[in-house]
């Protein structure tokens, strides 16, 4: 174990040594700089090893051989070791990145960098207040030096403003220091804490001045205009240090140390300042379109978040370091990585980042950083977020929870909007493809690697299972390694993987899991057959798709709330990447993500409240919750799950996301992904049952939502011109039925929901594939541009025909079974009014279904389509398999439902079906699928043969062999009745389709954006204004902390 003083001496010594060199010897100076930084990093690494692996105890290091207060003391524990490592590694990597710049600027810049690093380590290690002040001064001067060394005039201005503010801060700190020393007679932080500084006369003010000075170093909102300018104008590699090492590590740790003196009564102040920063900075980042400024806002926000964690340390207990460290390290690594990346981008606009698309590894780094910042699994932020929410919920700090989750959602929104730009936008004309040197790329790659390493470490440290040990997730991530292989090969691996996982897991499934497992895994494999149609490598498709499937597979077997939530986030993020692949899906994918993450945060809040501080909370334990918390938890979880089933009000993401997705992605996200929400709702209904909030039965509310979803979904589907949008709206309706079934809270209602799960998977996947295949051939999804395709695409026609008969619920196909169970289920329920809406919704399905088949396949063939071929083989093949499945399921529904019907008995005893013989019997009625099929088939065949017999000489006529309006038409466009097909219906019920919900969400989004835009104007760019901000901030915090 190397003495801490050596680390500081190394930095200082190297800086002096460089000063002694002739200024021409830049190579040597640079080598010394790197060597010194590397040695410092190695020392810090050694400490981390010592504490983590060898179980070392924290050390007090006394300088001058004397204990405080007569000499400066340093403290070295796990936290100091990790932070020092972070600071030194960031500096080292930045120094590598900055090679050219440092060479150009010469040895002085290198010395300044070394001094900066050394001072940061000092800030982290020291326990002496004056020493802290000295190191901070050093840091300020070094920072200003590095900024001022930059050539840009803007940077010059920013550096000057920084100096102004820093001097103000220093004055505050120095005065505070003097008073504190006067009051306690020691400069040692622990000594001051022991002497209870704040209880002494003037002690409170002294502490306040110290504290506010340190807070100001964190650049909290609104006293941070200068910092934004700094982030924007400094060299990106320096911004990386500024964001992750200076603000992220050193200053935060200094605040944490000071709070030892302040005690618990100052924690709320830290929380309030942190929350304000986190919320405001993220809101202000929302309308931002310059990359570095956006990163600046995000840094301020993240630092605010960590400050909140520091402020909450009274309730976090042993988890404090785990949580604060998880968020801090995620932020530091990700922000440094992003700033380094920004150096490769030729322009400051967000769209310019799309040049990264040409560099898959860098792009992977970008995704990693964004996922780390957003706190997605498997990164440390995810574990930290989970524990933090659990602790907040346990301590009843609901307000903090709400604000944190809200701001985190806003942050995710702008980060992923940015990601969408990168994937989808084209850079401005004339932007050169960046060719960063390998050295700089390696710096970014090492940040990526560190990010994944931290993910593993945090998984190991977590009391929950390490997500990186989950086989499905590893399988999905494994596709990243074989991205170079051709798509057909990866597709085969994917199919084999899904089937193998099903084979391995199915003995452990209960009947209900089996239904979902079969739909997800076997069903997923079936849809993947269509992916054989894709050519080339299809970079990005398989990791995303498999991530979604991994999440789904983990979801249905999740036992603890943590596993459930982790799986939920994985499937959300995987499906987001998948949806984003569509040609025009950028805004829709974003809206999907925002709604899904919003829903996920509600689920997180719900589970956190439910756990009541327990580390491990079993999902099945939801049933043991009681009033007054239980109904709230139910509502949170239900709304969260309903974002996934796109229940009305939360549905606006679905049509675009499903319609714009690729041909083989639409069936995945529609046929399979929506079922995750259904699974969640079923779990919820089975564990928590009926809950009352303000005297309202929540399941009754769900009945209404289900019925309205069915109605509005169907109605909107009937008015679509775009075939895939029509199917997407139809999914909203279908999921409305499933929701209704679950909310009925009886045996057959649940069975009905499961029937819809299976049916909807089969027919919606089939229809999306058919329509996708047709769209591929015709080049359009607008139905009125098609027509008469039946002879050219007979197999697609058959698939759609079977599909729509099944969806509509007409016997003899399987949709009827769903309707029959529905009728049997509703006889038992008490709330009958929502049924009226459900009944109205039913026949409306005919409108859109007929429209779908008629305007595409029937009517008049367009001239430009005369030479079209049938849809591609690989897209047709799964459709034909679906037709067979549908027929089998129609004939013997018992095959899939019988066991689950028995299984449901343990939740809702009695009221099930009798499956004996060919007839399925309920308490009220009966239904015999096979005889129905036989009777209908016999009648149909007889009549058909009869017609063939009497009409054998019928002459096949060509198109346009019709007459109307006293002429024989000759143009398909004027003859094909297709556009605005249900005009009279629109006249009668069109008022129901007004986009109220869309307007509602748009208004919210608009208000957030314009509010942020307005607030942003406080940043005038004027140093004096910024000084006033700082003073106002000081006064406000004083009033908050002392005065009120």
């Amino acid at each position, binding site marked *: 174990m190397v003495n801490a003083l050596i680390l500081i001496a190394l930095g200082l010594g190297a800086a002096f040594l460089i000063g002694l060199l002739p200024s021409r010897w830049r190579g040597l100076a640079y080598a010394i700089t790197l060597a010194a930084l590397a040695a410092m990093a190695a020392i810090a690494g050694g400490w981390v090893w010592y504490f983590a692996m060898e179980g070392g105890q924290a050390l007090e290091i006394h300088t001058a051989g004397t204990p405080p207060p007569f000499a400066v003391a340093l403290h070295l524990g796990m936290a100091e070791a990790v932070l020092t490592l972070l600071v030194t590694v960031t500096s080292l990597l930045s120094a590598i990145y900055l090679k050219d710049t440092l060479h150009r600027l010469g040895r002085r810049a290198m010395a300044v960098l070394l001094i900066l690093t050394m001072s940061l380590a000092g800030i982290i290690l020291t326990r002496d207040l004056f020493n802290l002040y000295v190191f901070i001064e050093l840091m300020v001067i070094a920072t200003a030096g590095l900024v001022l060394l930059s050539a840009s005039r803007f940077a010059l201005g920013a550096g000057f403003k920084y100096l102004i503010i820093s001097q103000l801060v220093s004055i505050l700190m120095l005065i505070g220091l003097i008073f504190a020393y006067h009051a306690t007679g020691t400069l040692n932080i622990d000594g001051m804490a022991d002497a209870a500084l704040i209880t002494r006369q003037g002690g409170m003010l002294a502490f306040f001045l110290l504290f506010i000075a340190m807070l100001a170093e964190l650049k909290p909102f609104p006293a941070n205009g200068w910092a934004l300018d700094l982030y924007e104008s400094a060299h990106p590699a320096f911004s990386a240090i500024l964001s992750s090492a200076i603000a992220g590590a050193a200053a935060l740790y200094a605040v944490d140390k000071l709070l030892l003196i302040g005690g618990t009564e100052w924690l709320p102040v830290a929380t309030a300042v942190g929350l304000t920063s986190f919320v405001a900075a993220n809101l202000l980042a929302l309308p931002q379109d310059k990359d570095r400024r956006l990163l600046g806002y995000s840094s301020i926000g993240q630092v605010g978040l960590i400050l909140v964690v520091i402020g909450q340390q009274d309730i976090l207990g042993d988890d404090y370091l785990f949580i604060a460290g998880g968020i801090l390290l995620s932020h530091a690594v990700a922000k440094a990585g992003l700033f380094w990346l920004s150096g490769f981008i030729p322009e400051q606009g967000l769209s310019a980042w799309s040049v990264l698309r040409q560099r898959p590894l860098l792009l992977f780094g970008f995704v990693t950083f964004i996922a780390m910042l957003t706190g997605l699994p498997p990164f440390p932020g995810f574990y930290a977020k989970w524990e933090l929410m659990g602790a907040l919920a346990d301590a009843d700090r609901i307000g903090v929870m709400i604000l944190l989750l809200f701001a985190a959602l806003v942050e995710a929104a702008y980060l992923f909007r940015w990601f969408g730009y990168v994937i989808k936008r084209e850079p401005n004309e004339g932007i050169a493809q960046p060719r960063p040197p390998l050295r700089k790329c390696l710096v970014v790659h090492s940040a990526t690697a560190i990010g994944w390493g931290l993910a593993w470490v945090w998984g190991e440290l977590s009391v929950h299972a390490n997500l990186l040990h989950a086989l499905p997730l590893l399988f999905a991530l494994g596709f990243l390694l074989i991205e170079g292989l051709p798509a057909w090969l990866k597709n085969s691996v994917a199919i084999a993987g899904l089937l193998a996982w099903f084979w391995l897991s199915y003995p452990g499934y209960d009947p209900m899991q089996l239904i979902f497992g079969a739909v997800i895994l076997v069903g997923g494999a079936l849809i993947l057959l269509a992916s054989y149609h894709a050519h080339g490598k299809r970079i990005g498709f398989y990791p995303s798709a498999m991530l979604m499937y991994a999440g789904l597979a983990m979801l249905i077997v999740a036992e603890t709330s943590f596993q459930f939530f982790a799986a939920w986030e994985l499937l959300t993020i995987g499906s987001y990447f998948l949806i984003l692949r569509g040609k025009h899906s950028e805004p829709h994918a974003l809206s999907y993500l925002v709604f899904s993450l919003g829903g996920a945060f509600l689920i997180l809040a719900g589970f956190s409240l439910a756990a009541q501080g327990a580390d491990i909370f079993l999902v099945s334990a939801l049933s043991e919750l009681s009033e007054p918390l239980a109904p709230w938890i139910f509502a949170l979880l239900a709304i969260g799950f309903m974002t996934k089933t796109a229940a009305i009000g939360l549905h606006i993401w679905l049509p675009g996301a499903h319609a714009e997705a690729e041909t083989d992605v639409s069936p995945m996200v529609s046929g399979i992904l929506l079922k995750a929400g259904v699974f969640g709702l079923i779990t919820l209904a089975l564990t928590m049952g009926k809950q009352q909030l303000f005297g309202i039965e929540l399941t009754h509310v769900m009945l209404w939502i289900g019925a309205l979803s069915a109605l509005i979904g169907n109605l909107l589907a009937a008015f679509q011109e775009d075939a895939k949008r029509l199917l997407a709206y139809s999914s909203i309706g279908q999921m409305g039925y499933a929701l209704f079934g679950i909310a009925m809270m009886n045996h057959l209602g649940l069975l009905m929901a499961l029937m819809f799960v299976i049916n909807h998977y089969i027919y919606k996947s089939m229809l999306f594939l058919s329509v996708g295949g047709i769209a591929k051939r015709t080049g359009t999804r607008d139905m009125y541009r098609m027509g*008469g395709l*039946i002879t050219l695409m007979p197999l697609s026609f058959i698939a759609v*025909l079977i599909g*729509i008969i099944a969806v509509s*619920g*007409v*016997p003899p196909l399987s949709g009827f079974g769903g*309707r*029959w169970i529905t*009728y049997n289920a509703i*006889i038992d329920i008490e709330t009958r009014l929502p*049924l*009226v809406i459900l*009944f*109205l919704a*039913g026949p409306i399905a*005919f*409108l859109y*279904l*007929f429209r779908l*088949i*008629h305007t595409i*396949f*029937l*009517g008049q063939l367009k001239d430009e389509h005369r030479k079209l071929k049938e849809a591609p083989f690989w897209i047709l093949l799964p459709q034909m398999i679906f037709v067979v499945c549908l027929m089998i399921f129609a004939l013997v529904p018992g095959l899939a439902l019988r066991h689950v019907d028995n299984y449901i008995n343990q939740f809702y005893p009695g009221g099930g079906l009798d499956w004996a013989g060919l*007839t399925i*019997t*309920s308490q*009220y*009625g*009966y*239904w*015999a699928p096979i005889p*129905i099929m036989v*009777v*209908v088939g016999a*009648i*149909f065949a007889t*009549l*058909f043969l009869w*017609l063939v017999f*009497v*009409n054998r*000489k*019928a*002459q*096949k006529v060509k198109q*346009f*062999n*019709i007459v*109307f309006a006293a002429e024989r038409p000759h143009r398909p466009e004027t003859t094909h*009745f297709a556009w605005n*097909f*249900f*005009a*009279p*219906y629109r*006249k*009668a*019920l069109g008022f129901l389709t007004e986009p109220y919900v869309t307007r509602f969400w748009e208004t919210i989004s608009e208000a957030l954006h314009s509010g942020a835009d307005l607030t942003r104007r406080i940043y005038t760019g004027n140093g004096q204004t910024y000084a006033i901000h700082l003073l106002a901030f000081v006064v406000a915090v004083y009033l908050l902390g002392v005065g009120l």
Partner: protein
Amino acid sequence: MTPSSFEWIQIPYALLTLFIVVNFGMLLTALMQKIGARVGRRHGIPIWQNYADLIKNYALRTSITHGVMFYLGPVFRLSGGVGLLLFVPTIYGSVMFANFSFAGDLILALYFVFFGTLGMALGAGESGHPYSAIGITRGLSQVTAAELPFALAVFAIALQYQTLSITEIVAAQQGGVSNWTLFTNPLAVTAAMLGFLGSMMRPPFDVVLAPQEIPIGPPTEYHSSYLALMQTNRAIFPIAKIVVYMNLFFGGAASWPVFFFKVFCIYMVSVFVGVVFPRFRVEQSIRWFLVWAVPIGVAAILLV
């Protein structure tokens, strides 16, 4: 409840039912036409007109087809009518005329109605005639609203009798006129009968076929034996539908004479209304059903 199962003898029995109903339907629809004409001081068609039309259509020497679906349309249509008839017991208490009701209950009948509608619409669609398509949009739009009060009424009586089996519902209404649903649950019957008006293709709800306005709606391009099949359906389908109404609301029929009488009376309701009121446009009829018929249906399910 357990339904009886299939025996081969049921096939000739079912054919017998079919035979009786087809002929009754042919005569009855002609009679109704005639009654309507007489109200308008016209002479009307001869009572055997439907037979003549049928023979003529089968006898036409030339016919054309627009494609496979065009061919299948009438087959779907007539299968829908025949199936609906055969899935519902015709004569209460008679094994002979219970048809294939063992295959499914009321819900089967309710949903099988759409089998023919959908198939027919598809066939008409392939003809490529815009008038067919316009007729279909009108028909589908109207049926969504017209079915609603009926569905509510069906649900109301399923709640009332606690069964979905048609036979059991008829059984519950035996023992005097006062046991009929008509009197035990007048709201449901009112709602259902208002819905009934919408499905009988008579004014004010006949804009779908709309004589004079557009030539004849969905069947525009149909002729010869196709039309013959559809005509047969036009004889069967209203009867099949009325059988459902009769069983659910009017005590069913224990013998053929009662059957003929009740079907005639129920049919007459739509004729009465039809000769009195002028035609609605589609959006008008949708609003009419939602404003007048649906609230009654809602009251029926709430008060049952």
